[in-house]
């Protein structure tokens, strides 16, 4: 364990940072009532995913001894995740506007029609 922590492995610290960011974003999504604040926390989670993919790319490249050949899939994944994050935010914004129009509030707890 000590060898891990003292080793010069940025991908390890990047993965730890990604885990912490994901947990913080998840807490925000679960605890916030304002729908725009939940969207902000969701974007924090997406950033965490991108950092995690960057960490995986660096790890795979480092284990292979070079970068280019092994880490391209992870780079493509990162670009796809950025695009999915943008799409998710766009649909979320539309949902927030629709929620504000129908319920006249941004409280996510107002949307409980499908609750069982």
């Amino acid at each position, binding site marked *: *364990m000590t*060898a*891990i922590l003292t*080793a010069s*492995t*940025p*991908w*390890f*610290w990047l*993965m730890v*940072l*990604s*885990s*912490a*960011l994901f*947990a*913080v*974003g*998840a*807490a*925000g999504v*679960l*605890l916030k*009532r*304002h729908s*725009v*604040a939940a969207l*902000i926390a969701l*974007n*924090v989670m997406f*950033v965490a995913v991108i*950092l995690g993919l*960057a960490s995986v*790319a660096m790890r795979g*490249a*480092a*284990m292979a001894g*070079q970068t*280019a050949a092994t880490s*391209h*899939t992870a*780079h*493509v994944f990162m*670009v*796809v995740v*950025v695009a*999915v994050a*943008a*799409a998710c*935010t*766009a*649909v979320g914004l*539309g949902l*927030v*506007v*629709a929620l504000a*129009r129908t319920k006249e*509030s*941004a*409280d996510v707890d107002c949307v409980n029609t499908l609750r069982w």
Partner: protein
Amino acid sequence: MIFLTFAGVTLLAAVLACWFRSVNSGLVGLMLVFLGSAFILAIVGQPFIAAVLVISGAATTLALFLLSAVGISPPHGPHPPDRRRAQVILGLCASVVLGAGLSAVALTLGAVAPDVGAAVESPSTIPMIGRALLGPHALAFELVAVLLLTSIVASVHLAKGSSS
């Protein structure tokens, strides 16, 4: 050291973005999260992803600022205290368990991997990413294009409402 500094700033900004009650303050925190993450990605040798993240983050933050400027009324009226307390406890427990699990995965991967240090960055990654996107990963590229178009149509339809 620089990496750890930016990591700390990013984590602090994320906590503030999720902590502030004001949406505008949270958006400033989100901007710092995008900026810190882009700096970190640039430091570890992935400038293309950093640039994409900055552009995407700028568009996201601008859209959220515009939405908050519209003046959507924030949630009013408190929850019943017992329900709110249970919600907070459950949310915090879930996020702590999630963070601990992900950190355990990171530690496991760190224990499995040899001490290889940082990856040696290739001189030009961007043309190779472009070739990969338009070559073996062309299907993913096209699917992303369709997804973005669908999300644009869906968001316009949702925001327009069913008044007609």
